[in-house]
């Protein structure tokens, strides 16, 4: 069974030393066979929620023009708290 969305995001972030949100969105789209602005916004909101909860932290940010529109991008890394919550919820082995 596939992981739920936030679980997948956490696992993807924990596997890297730092990953940009744009790359995460592409990963989710491929994994769940999704596409579109609405789904992209949903994923960005999920990342904001994970950051607000302290499970992931933003290590870098930049403004980039994508399709003629300035977009604020974030690079995320898993936090120590995030790792402990992932262990608690079975997303990482103890």
């Amino acid at each position: 069974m596939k992981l739920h969305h936030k679980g997948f995001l956490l696992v993807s972030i924990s596997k890297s030393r730092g990953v940009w949100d744009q790359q995460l969105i592409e990963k989710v789209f491929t994994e769940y066979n999704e596409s579109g602005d609405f789904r992209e916004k949903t994923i960005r909101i999920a990342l904001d929620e994970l950051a607000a909860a302290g499970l992931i932290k933003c290590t870098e940010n930049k403004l980039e023009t994508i399709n003629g529109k300035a977009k604020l991008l974030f690079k995320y890394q898993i936090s120590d708290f995030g790792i402990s919550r992932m262990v608690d919820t079975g997303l990482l082995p103890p």
Partner: protein
Amino acid sequence: MLNNVPASSLLKIALHKHYARNQRWGFMWALWTAILWGAWYVPGTALWFERPYVDISVNEQSLRLAATAVMTWIHAIAVFLFLLIWNMALGKVKDYGRTMLSFNKISKWYALASLCGGPLAIFGSYMAMGFIGPVFAAISSLFYPVVGAIIARLWYKEKISKRTAIGMCIIIFGGMVIYGPSIFGETGASNPNAWLGYLGGIMSAIGWGSEGAVAGRAMDVSDPDVGIHCRFSFEVVFWGMFILPALAIFTDLPIKNLIVETVTHSKAMLWIILAAACHAYCYTAMYKSLILIGVGRGEAIGNLYAVFALIFIAAFTLQLPQWYFIVGLFLTVLGSFVMFSEPAESVAELRDNSDAKVY
């Protein structure tokens, strides 16, 4: 004009806008919680004035409690259906399935939250409405943010800034000013079972406060829209598979009759459906706000429901509010503004994580 602004300043502005937008959404969801929750007391109380519930005298203590259990269960089923529509529209039904199935690790928290929110809080609130009245039911839950904030602080180290604490105190004080004087007019010494209403009030405050904090554990790693759906799924199961069958088997209470009579009385069902619509989306808004602005802040702004409950009750009963309502209204709104004035960046990260190890 923006071409002359250095890139670092543009980035700074964009970041501030980003955090401010998140904060605004968090508080907006919390405000929707308050409006819909306030509205809920109207159909929730009106239900007690329809058959089969109106036929049960206040002296029939156990029958009235059984009726409360039945209405809470049917209410939970209706909420579940409204949430199903919501998640179908958002395309999150698959994620709901995945989250429900990881019971040991994630959805067990929603199961626990549903015990706090259902058999404790919603049941308690229907008790308070049925045994005393809607105004008392509303005031008795006003302290739930305090329960929620304390649990969140002790359990998973959520930050409570001085400003948040002051805002919470003002809101709670405002609620007391609005409802305090009304309790004395509403309780009625003639009702020998009024204590059950008081008990229900305490249950609702503890239930909702602890639900927010417990659900917060699961929402860390799952989606709030999906989470609230899981929470109500468990509530439907708890009432429908454990509590009501146990009452039907081990007591002589007419559980089956109450269920049949409720679903066959269109007016009772209409009130239940209206109450469920308010509650489904009030809960959705609450879960969304908790995750963006924290349990303490989200629940305290949600506490403005007291103001909206009074407005809605006044509109439907055509009884104008007293002077102390205006004072209370001022205080609760002031309290929310004290909290809202916190810098967006400090709301952006809700936890003290330096020493965090959560069990």
